[in-house]
C-alpha cells in the first residue's frame, strides 16, 4: 500500500505542478507563508479562551470571597432583620430600580415584575395590584386598583367626617422604634396627594395632620385608578402594608381589601429589602467594570451596585485592514449580541443555580457586537451553613480582552502580511536570478560545442560557490576533456602524416636506389633485373607516390591554417583579382568554359590576395570536379558597402540534403564515385577557413532549377 507521502511526492512529480516553471514553483512555495496568519489567529483565539477562562475563574473566586464576607450576616443583607420566605403573600419585595421613577400617577414606567407584585382581591370584582421598588433611599409604591367607581372626598374642611369620605388608601408600617404608623390618602380629585395621619386632640377630638415626607400622585387608570407614592426608607421598620377603603358612594360604608389587618390596620406583611448598610459593605469590593448584585434566596433582587466605568472600555479598531481581518478570522466563539431582557434572563438563571447552593460562572453576550460579559454567582450561606440567605452575583465586561485580541491580531496580521510580501518578493527575485543563471548556463552549454568541433571551455557561473557553480565546473571539466579529445582528433591527421612520412621516405629512397642499381646493372654488369622487375618497381613507385599525395593532402589543412596565421592584409581590388584569376582558369581547365560576372567599378577590399586566389582555386576545382566536359562554370562577384560576395556555380548533380551545412567541414566529402585522385574534402574546408579569416562565411546551395550547385563566399571588405 502506498503511503500518503509517496502519493503526494508522486503528484509533485507528475501533477500539474511539475509543468510549472521554476519561478512559479518558488512563488507557490512563498505563498505558503500565508498559513502564518491562520496559525496566528488560532493562537490568538487560544489565548483569548485561556484569558477568558482565567477571568471567569478569578471572578468566581471574587464572588465566593464576597459571599463569604456576607456569610451569616443577615442583618447586613436584609433591613430590619427580615428573612424572606416565612411572611406569606403579604410580604413586599421591592424591585431595585436603576433610576428613580417619576411620581406621576402613571404605572407605565413600572416593570411589572412578578416577584415584586402583591395582589389583593376585594368584593365585587375589585382588586389591587401593588408594585414596589426601591431606589437609593426611597421606597416607591404603585397601587393599581381595579375599581368600577372612584369616589372622591367632599371638599369639606373636616376630612374626618364620615359623611364626606370617598375612596381611601391606608399605608401602615412600624417605625424603627417599634411604634405603629398609620397614614391615609384621600383626595377630592385626581392629582398630587399628601399622606395624612390622624392625631388625637383633647376631648376625644381627632384631626388629620399632613406627613410632608411622603408624597404621591393619584390618577385615573385603566378600569380604575392608580396611586403612586414615594416613602423614605428610613421611616419604615420591619412591616409594611396598604389597605383600600372602597366606597360605592360618598359616606357609604367601606369595603376594605389589601395587606393590612382590616380590624386594627396593623401591617403584618414584611418589607423584604436590602439593609441600608449592604451597599456600603459591597462598595468596598467594587472594581472598575464589575457589577454586583445581591438577591434573596427566592431570586428577588435586593441591591445592585452599578459597574464603575472601565478606564479603557472596548474600542473597535478602525481602518480597512482590521476590518478585513475580522471578516476573515473572527469565528463565532462569542455569542452574538442579545437584548437586555435576554441578558437579564441569563443572569437570572445563574442566580437560580446559586440559590440552590452552587457557585457557577457563565458568559453572556454583551452590549456590543462580539462583546461579552462574564458573570459569576455564589450563594450566601447562614452562619451554620445550612441555610441559603441569598445570592451574590458579579458581572464583568470582557471587552478589554477583545481589545487585546484585536490589537494582537492586527499586529500579528500586519507583520505576517509584511513578511509574506517580503517572502514572495524574495522568492520571486531568487527564482528570477536562479532561472537567469540556469538559462545562461544552459545557453552557454548549448553553444559550447561549436559546429566544427571547437570547444568553449569557460562557462558562466564557474565562480559561484553553490550547486550551480559545481554544475558549471563539471560542465567545464567535461568540455575540457572534450576539447582535448577534439584537439587530438584535429591533429591526428597531421601527426599521422608526419609519422608515416619517415617509413615512406625509406620505401621511396630504397626504390630509387633499386632503380639506380638496375640502371647501373643494365649499363654495366650482366645478370641485372629482368623487365618484369622494372614493372614492379614502377608500380611500387606509383603506390608510394600516391601515398605521398595522401599525406600531403592530410597535412594541407594544417599548412593552410599556418599560412593563414602568417598572412598579411593589404588593400587590393577584388574585381581585378577575380578577373585575372578567372582568365587563367581557361588555360588550366581547357574542357570547361568560364563565365565571369563582375561589377563595373573596382571592389576595394582589405585582405590577403594570395588566400583569396587559393580560395577561388578550391571553389573552381570543386566546380570542375562536379561538372562534365564543356560545362560552363559561372563566377560572380557582388559587393555592397561592407561585404563582397563571390559565388561559383556549376551545372551538375544537386547537393545531398545534409550536405549544405557539412560540406565545409574538414574531411567530409560527398562524391558519388571514387576516383583516383586522393580527396579528403579539404578544399571546401580551406575555403571556409579563408572566408572566416576575412570575417565572412561560406555556404552551398542548389541552383533554383536543380540543374547544379552554387557555392558562395561572403567576405568583409
Amino acid at each position, binding site marked *: 500500500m502506498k503511503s500518503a507521502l509517496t502519493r503526494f511526492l508522486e503528484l509533485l512529480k507528475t501533477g500539474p505542478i511539475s509543468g510549472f516553471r521554476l519561478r512559479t514553483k518558488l512563488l507557490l512555495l512563498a505563498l505558503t507563508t500565508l498559513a502564518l496568519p491562520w496559525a496566528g489567529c488560532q493562537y490568538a483565539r487560544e489565548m483569548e479562551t485561556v484569558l477568558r477562562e482565567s477571568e471567569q475563574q478569578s471572578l468566581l473566586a471574587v464572588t465566593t470571597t464576597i459571599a463569604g464576607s456576607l456569610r451569616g450576616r443577615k442583618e447586613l443583607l436584609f433591613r430590619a432583620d427580615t428573612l424572606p420566605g416565612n411572611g406569606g403573600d403579604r410580604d413586599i419585595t421591592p424591585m431595585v430600580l436603576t433610576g428613580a421613577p417619576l411620581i406621576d400617577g402613571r404605572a407605565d414606567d413600572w416593570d411589572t415584575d412578578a416577584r415584586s407584585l402583591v395582589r389583593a382581591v376585594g368584593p365585587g370584582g375589585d382588586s389591587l395590584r401593588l408594585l414596589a421598588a426601591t431606589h437609593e433611599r426611597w421606597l416607591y409604591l404603585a397601587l393599581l386598583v381595579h375599581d368600577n367607581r372612584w369616589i372622591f372626598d367632599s371638599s369639606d374642611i373636616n376630612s374626618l367626617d364620615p359623611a364626606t369620605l370617598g375612596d381611601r388608601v391606608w399605608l401602615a408600617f412600624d417605625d424603627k422604634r417599634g411604634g405603629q404608623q398609620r397614614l391615609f390618602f384621600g383626595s377630592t380629585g385626581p392629582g398630587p396627594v399628601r399622606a395624612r395621619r390622624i392625631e388625637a386632640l383633647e376631648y376625644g377630638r381627632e384631626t388629620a395632620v399632613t406627613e410632608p415626607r411622603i408624597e404621591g400622585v393619584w390618577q385615573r387608570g385603566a378600569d380604575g385608578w392608580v396611586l403612586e407614592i414615594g416613602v423614605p426608607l428610613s421611616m419604615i421598620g420591619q412591616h409594611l402594608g396598604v389597605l383600600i377603603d372602597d366606597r360605592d358612594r360618598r359616606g357609604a360604608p367601606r369595603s376594605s381589601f389589601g395587606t393590612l389587618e382590616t380590624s386594627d390596620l396593623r401591617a403584618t406583611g414584611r418589607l423584604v429589602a436590602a439593609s441600608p448598610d449592604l451597599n456600603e459593605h459591597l462598595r468596598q469590593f467594587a472594581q472598575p467594570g464589575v457589577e454586583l448584585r445581591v438577591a434573596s434566596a427566592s431570586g428577588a433582587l435586593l441591591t445592585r451596585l452599578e459597574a464603575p466605568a472601565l478606564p479603557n472600555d472596548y474600542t473597535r479598531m478602525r481602518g480597512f485592514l482590521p476590518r478585513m481581518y475580522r471578516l476573515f478570522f473572527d469565528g463565532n466563539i462569542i455569542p452574538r449580541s442579545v437584548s437586555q431582557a435576554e441578558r437579564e434572563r441569563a443572569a437570572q438563571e445563574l442566580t437560580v443555580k446559586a440559590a440552590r447552593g452552587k457557585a457557577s460562572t457563565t458568559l453572556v453576550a454583551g452590549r456590543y457586537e462580539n462583546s461579552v460579559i462574564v458573570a459569576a454567582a455564589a450563594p450566601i450561606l447562614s452562619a451554620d451553613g445550612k441555610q441559603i440567605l441569598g445570592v451574590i452575583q458579579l458581572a464583568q465586561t470582557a471587552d478589554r480582552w477583545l481589545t487585546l485580541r484585536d490589537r494582537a491580531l492586527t499586529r500579528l496580521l500586519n507583520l505576517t502580511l509584511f513578511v509574506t510580501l517580503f517572502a514572495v518578493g524574495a522568492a520571486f527575485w531568487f527564482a528570477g536570478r536562479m532561472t537567469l543563471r540556469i538559462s545562461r548556463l544552459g545557453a552557454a552549454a548549448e553553444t559550447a560545442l561549436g559546429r566544427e568541433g571547437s570547444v568553449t571551455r569557460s562557462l558562466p557561473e564557474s565562480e559561484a560557490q553553490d550547486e550551480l557553480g559545481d554544475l558549471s565546473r563539471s560542465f567545464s571539466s567535461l568540455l575540457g576533456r572534450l576539447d582535448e579529445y577534439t584537439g587530438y582528433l584535429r591533429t591526428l591527421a597531421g601527426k599521422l602524416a*608526419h609519422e608515416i*612520412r*619517415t617509413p615512406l*621516405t*625509406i620505401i*621511396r*629512397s*630504397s626504390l*630509387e*636506389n633499386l632503380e*639506380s642499381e638496375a640502371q*647501373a646493372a643494365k649499363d654495366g654488369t650482366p645478370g641485372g633485373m629482368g623487365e618484369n622487375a622494372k614493372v614492379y618497381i614502377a608500380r611500387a613507385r606509383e603506390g608510394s607516390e600516391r601515398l*605521398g599525395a595522401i599525406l*600531403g593532402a592530410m*597535412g*594541407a589543412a594544417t*599548412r*593552410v591554417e*599556418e*599560412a593563414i596565421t*602568417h598572412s598579411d592584409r593589404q588593400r587590393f581590388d577584388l574585381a581585378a*583579382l577575380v578577373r*585575372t*584569376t*578567372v*582568365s*587563367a*582558369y581557361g588555360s*588550366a581547365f581547357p574542357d570547361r568554359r568560364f563565365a565571369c560576372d563582375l561589377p563595373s567599378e573596382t571592389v576595394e577590399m582589405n585582405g590577403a*590576395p*594570395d588566400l583569396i*586566389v*587559393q580560395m*577561388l*582555386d578550391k571553389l573552381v576545382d570543386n566546380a570542375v570536379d562536379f561538372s562534365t566536359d564543356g560545362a560552363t562554370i559561372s563566377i560572380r562577384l557582388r559587393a555592397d558597402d561592407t561585404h563582397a560576395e563571390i559565388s561559383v556555380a556549376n551545372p551538375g548533380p544537386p547537393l545531398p540534403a545534409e550536405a549544405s551545412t557539412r560540406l565545409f567541414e574538414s574531411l567530409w566529402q560527398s562524391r558519388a564515385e571514387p576516383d583516383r585522385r586522393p580527396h579528403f574534402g579539404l578544399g571546401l574546408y580551406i575555403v571556409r577557413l579563408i572566408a572566416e579569416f576575412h570575417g565572412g562565411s561560406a555556404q552551398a546551395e542548389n541552383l533554383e532549377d536543380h540543374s547544379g550547385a552554387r557555392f558562395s563566399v561572403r567576405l568583409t571588405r
Partner: protein
Amino acid sequence: MKKTIAIVEDERAIRDNYAAAFAREGYAVRGYPNRREAMTAFAARLPDLAVIDISLEDEPEGGFELCRELRGLSPELPIIFLTARDSELDAVSGLRLGADDFLTKDLSLAHLIARVNALFRRVDALRRPPEEKQVIRRGALTLDGERMSVLWNNEVVLLSLTEFWIVYALTKHPGHVKNRQQLMDAANVVLDDNTITSHIKRIRRKFQAVDPAFDAVHTVYGMGYRWVE
C-alpha cells in the same frame, strides 16, 4: 680526392639509402645517428658537405644545434637540412642558422643529388675568379649563375639554393610569367602552392632587407610570378 658528405640522420634505413645514392655518385659518405657522434667526428675532420635532419634521437631540435656548431667551425661549408618537418617556422629557423637549403624528405634522390652537385659547383666556383658570361645583370640586380650569388645595388642578398634557383628562373626572361610548376622544375623541387608562396614571400623579404623599395617580383593571380625591372 673524393668529396666527403656527412649524413646526420637517426633513421638508419634512410641514412644508408642516402649514403648508397651519394656513394653511387662517387662521393665518400659518412653517416652519424646523433649530434654527439657527428660533432666528435667533425672536430677531428670537417666533411665537404653536411646533410642534417632536425630531430636527432632524443633531441627534437638537435639538427639546429648541430648546424649552429658546424657553422661556427666553418662559415663556407654547405649545409642542407633534410627533414620530415615541413612547417614554415622550421624552414625559417633553419635558413636563419646559415643552412644553404631546407628540403623535405619528399624530395627524390635525383633532386637531392642535383642540389648536392650544385652546391659543390658553387664551392668550386667561389675558389675561381668570377666568369663574366655566367653573370646576369638586370638593373640593380647582379646574379652569378656559377657562384650562385645575388647582388642588389651591389649589396649581397643571401638566398638559399631553392630561392636562388627561383630568382634565376624569374630573371632569365624578365617580364615573362613563370607559373608554379615552372618554378618548381627550375628549383629541382616538388612543392605545394603554399610553399611556393612562402618562398616568394621570403625572397621579397630578403631583397627588401637591403632595399625597402624593392618591388621586382610581381604576383600574377591565377598564373604565377614575373620579374619586373
